[in-house]
């Protein structure tokens, strides 16, 4: 299993914390260049999965390849090819915007000139060039999230992992954020995004829906709505969650 067309391949991915199974035999592939939505309620196991794929957490078992490399043995090679925006805020609040760009660009091994060029480009695209030497702590959440995303893709990774990137931001900023995601995908970056906003699922090429540590459904939003006879993704999710709840009782 080393398909050149896939960015991520997971087969029977399991993560167990003691007797609690956070990821129960997840099997899925993500194609290159697509926007893959990883949906589920809070606590369904999304963050656990994303941390495994980024090489931050070791899976209990499974056969998993990210950017063609094995997550058990080649984590450092994976790390060269991915970007990650964590659920927790990841920029240094006591540094300025450009200092954050310089630091992360620097540890990804970018040259001084390309860091400067990239920082300029990204701030221009966000329309906040004048905020370049502003301390992060004094910026509103929406701008910070967009900056965190920009930092995560500034070294042009093959895949970017976004863990709840739009958590807590207003609807307008969410819309702008998804425009940025589309732009990244158009530039050839595979996007793996977790969210619990079901309306955002509509923006993805394909989505998987996790319930209690298992993937209950995986398809395009259109096919899922058809299959579950639902008018929107929210109803799809509710039906799946209800079934799982019934199964448990």
């Amino acid at each position, binding site marked *: 299993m080393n398909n050149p067309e896939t960015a991520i391949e997971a087969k029977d991915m399991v993560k167990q914390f003691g007797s609690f199974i956070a990821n129960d035999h997840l099997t899925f592939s993500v194609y290159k260049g697509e926007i893959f939505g990883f949906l589920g309620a809070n606590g369904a196991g999304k963050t656990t999965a994303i941390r495994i794929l980024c090489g*931050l957490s070791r899976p209990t078992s499974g056969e998993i390849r990210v950017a063609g490399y094995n997550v058990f043995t080649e984590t450092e090679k994976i790390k060269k090819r*991915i970007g990650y925006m964590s659920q927790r805020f990841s920029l240094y609040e006591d540094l300025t915007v450009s200092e954050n760009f*310089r630091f992360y660009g620097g*540890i990804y091994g970018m040259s001084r000139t390309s860091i400067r060029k990239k920082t300029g480009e990204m701030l221009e695209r966000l329309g906040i060039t004048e905020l370049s030497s502003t301390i992060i702590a004094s910026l509103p959440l929406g701008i910070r999230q967009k900056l965190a995303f920009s930092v995560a893709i500034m070294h042009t990774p093959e895949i970017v992992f976004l863990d709840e990137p739009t958590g807590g931001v207003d609807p307008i900023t969410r819309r702008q954020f998804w425009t940025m995601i589309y732009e990244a995908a158009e530039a050839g970056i595979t996007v793996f995004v977790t969210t619990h906003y079901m309306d955002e699922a509509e923006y993805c090429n394909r989505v998987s829906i996790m319930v209690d540590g298992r993937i209950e459904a995986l398809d395009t939003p259109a096919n899922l709505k058809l299959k579950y006879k639902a008018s929107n993704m929210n109803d799809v999710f509710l039906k799946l969650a209800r079934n799982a709840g019934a199964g448990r009782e």
Partner: protein
Amino acid sequence: MHFHNMRTIFYIVQKEFLQVFRNRMMLPIIFVIPVVQLLILSYAVTFEIKNINLYIVDNDNTVSSRSLLEHFRSSPFYHITGQGANSKLGMEYIQKGKAHQMLVLLPGFEKNLVTGTPARVQVINDAINGSAAALMNAYTLSIIGDYNKNIISRIQPGASSPMNVRWSFWFNPELDYKTYMVPGILVLLVTIIGMFLAGMNVVREKEIGTIEQINVTPIKKYQFIAGKLIPFWIIALFELAVGLLAARLIFDIPLLGNIFLIFFIASVYLLVVMGIGLFLSTVTNTQQQSMFLAWFVLVIFILMSGLFTPVESMPQWARNLNVVNPIAYFIEMIRMVMLKGSGFQHISYKLGLLFIYGVAMLSLAVWRYRKTT
């Protein structure tokens, strides 16, 4: 080392310096508190005994007894806190902490002196603080001894003691306590900075979550540790320079040895304490945990180091434990170089051991640091 690897370290060092100098609390912590600490500890922590509160019971009340007591009254080290007819009241003074020592002269003191019978003097010390009591006792005995010698030479002119001892104190001729203490306190200063700043910095990144963002990059583990080590290593050496300057200007502490040798020793020493601090940061998740562990280690190291008590008077097992006590190495070496003017050849063996220790601790920190959990 590859140029690219060095660059990665440089970016971390740059970021740490930016953060340290931007933090309003950090600058006073780093530069003011140490000087204050040096001032307070050097003046206050002293083993010299001044102001011994003495209670006197003179049951003889003769010219001789009064002349002995006069020696105590005129000494700057004694303060006569009370005088009474019997030792009962004196005991009460000691109980209440109003007197440290009681001197009892029994009736017949003068008569015995004149007739050549041993005259008896009783000295009672409050020995809760053993070393202070021993010192008080020694002062008192030396005053009585001087008095005794005068009497002997008066009664038997021409008699001299068979042994004639003359002494001199090398390297600290005036037995100035500060000369001994200040180098040790400089060591403490460097230690606290070294042990806490780097380690706490790593744990702080764990707490705010930024460490995840670093762990997801292809950074190498040694680069991360080196990037956290170097800034605080430089700050600690700078701090030592401030401390040495203060020692020279305020306390007039002699600096007989080579100042560069002192900095060289300190740089090697810092590898050890920072290695320990960074290692602790890899096994803890919160600043609280890491602080607690670091203090635990530090207090043991300080108390056993010979800073406050001579290592020579510790039991053998405790002295053996000092093989792993970096503070003991550093204090011994810095005192040797500052006060005795020892050179590299005198300390090279210990310095070598310290270097190996430092490399070992840093390797341990690199090994224990986990990018993937």
